[in-house]
């Protein structure tokens, strides 16, 4: 990384304790008192939205949507609803991405950084309630947030209600409309939009949903200002970012990088690769595969990666070793993703199942005629035809795999499973996948 970045990083992860969570007193000592606290100051909290806009902060949950636009939309919607229908803020730490660990890490180690951001966002949009959404399986994160909330309560509270919503495990259960559905007493399944959550969300109120990392950045922008934030990153994608790096690397884990930093420098920071790299998965299981040969040119920001048809998504990077079998990896993950469909929309349920089935045939060396054309056909049918974007993500994942792993796929289609097919799995899957066709 550039020398300048070395001076300025880490930002979010500065002072991260080696064990346990940073307590409130220590957090206040390092991050300062929360602005917009007194009643008089709170009336001016809308100014925070201007700061966020000048900072150019984009959401870190995957969609990279401009945060200030979201804040304004909720504020405006709040102004249109009758009194007593004030907006609600959701802090979304339900990652869902099996290869992502950053939001869980933030809640476990730096809960007050995220909670400060949630409180500030609530003040900015005029909300009187904050709900922290945590995966039910993330026990340490839940404990940490619970303890942090009682610490804040003892210190006098934040002048708004703060609650915790546990989210059932599932790839799509952290999706925005699924969270709203869950908070309203329904299942954690996406709903048809519009109405968008900012129009009508939890208890029919305008609802702001921000990723946990996004809120942590907001805390620092409120303290240090937009100029400081923009001192790192690219003009289109300013600031730093948390990335979860895994696969064939010496020290997998969560790293804070400057947007636009070379992937190569991140790999070096993680102790280098443990084997030659066949390919890299960017953005998670709804993301994009790129050939390992492209690694030296890759710069880690959404504007730079867009040239390669990729994005950082929720900050997931997986390095696939040349010793692993990409066909087995992609097939298993695709079958898992098909099973993660919430089962509500026909084109997603049927399309993803058909695509996974076709990959299973290829993996087993028993493809029916025209299998490539059929995968392309089903991809067209699945894409854009669900209530949420789950099918679109899977289609992107598969399409890029077909391109990058064309040779291995052709080889499996002709000769069946390879020696590496039974090797250790690279892409983590929370539920084991038995591939019928490969057995």
């Amino acid at each position: 990384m550039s020398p300048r970045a070395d001076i300025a990083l880490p930002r979010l992860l500065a002072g991260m304790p080696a064990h346990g969570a940073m307590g409130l007193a220590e957090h206040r000592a390092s991050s300062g008192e929360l602005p917009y606290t007194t009643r008089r100051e709170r009336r001016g909290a809308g100014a925070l939205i201007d700061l966020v806009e000048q900072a150019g902060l984009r959401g870190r949950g995957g969609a990279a949507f401009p945060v200030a636009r979201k804040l304004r939309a909720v504020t405006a919607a709040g102004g249109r609803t009758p009194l007593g229908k004030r907006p609600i803020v959701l802090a979304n730490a339900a990652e869902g991405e099996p290869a992502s660990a950053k939001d869980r890490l933030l809640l476990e180690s730096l809960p007050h950084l995220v909670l400060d951001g949630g409180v500030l966002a609530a003040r900015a949009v005029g909300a009187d309630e904050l709900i922290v959404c945590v995966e039910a399986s993330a026990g340490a994160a839940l404990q940490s947030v619970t303890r942090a909330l009682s610490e804040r309560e003892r210190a006098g509270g934040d002048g708004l209600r703060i609650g915790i919503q546990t989210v059932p495990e599932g790839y799509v259960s952290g999706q925005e409309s699924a969270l709203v559905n869950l908070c309203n007493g329904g299942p954690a399944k996406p709903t048809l939009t519009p109405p968008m959550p900012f129009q009508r969300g939890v208890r029919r109120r305008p609802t702001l949903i921000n990723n946990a990392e996004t809120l942590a950045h907001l805390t620092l922008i409120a303290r240090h200002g937009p100029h400081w934030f923009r001192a790192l990153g690219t003009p289109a994608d300013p600031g730093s970012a948390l990335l979860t790096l895994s696969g064939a690397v010496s020290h997998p884990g969560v790293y804070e990088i400057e947007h636009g930093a070379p992937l190569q420098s991140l790999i070096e920071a993680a102790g280098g690769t443990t084997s030659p790299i066949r390919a890299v998965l960017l953005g998670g299981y709804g993301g994009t595969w790129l050939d390992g040969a492209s690694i030296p040119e890759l710069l880690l920001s959404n504007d730079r990666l867009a040239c390669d048809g990729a994005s950082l998504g929720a900050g997931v990077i997986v390095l696939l070793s040349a010793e692993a079998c990409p066909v087995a990896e992609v097939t298993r993950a695709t079958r898992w993703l098909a099973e993660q469909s919430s089962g509500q929309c026909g084109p997603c349920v049927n399309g993803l199942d058909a695509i996974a089935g076709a990959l299973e045939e290829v993996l087993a060396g028993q493809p029916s005629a025209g299998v490539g054309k059929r995968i392309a056909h089903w991809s067209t049918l699945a894409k854009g035809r669900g209530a949420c974007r789950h099918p679109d993500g899977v289609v992107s994942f598969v399409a890029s795999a077909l391109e990058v792993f064309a040779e291995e796929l052709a080889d499996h289609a002709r000769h069946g499973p390879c020696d590496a097919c039974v090797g250790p799995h690279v892409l983590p899957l929370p539920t084991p996948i038995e591939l019928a066709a490969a057995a």
Partner: protein
Amino acid sequence: MSLRLKVNPIACEAHGMCAEVLPELIALDDWGYPILDERPITPELVDHAKRAAQACPTFALLIERDTPPQREE
């Protein structure tokens, strides 16, 4: 102002009535779910489109007025 077809994919159960009433704008995919022509409905087909929406047993076919583009997320 123009009208467009939209389907609620959660409510849709692939009965296929819509494609029978309005084959000009609705085809069915491999599993019987509708593929819509999402361009503005031409005036002579508006009545047919309304009948197709009424024919849906799950009220999944919607006819929407053009609104300013929604943000994606």
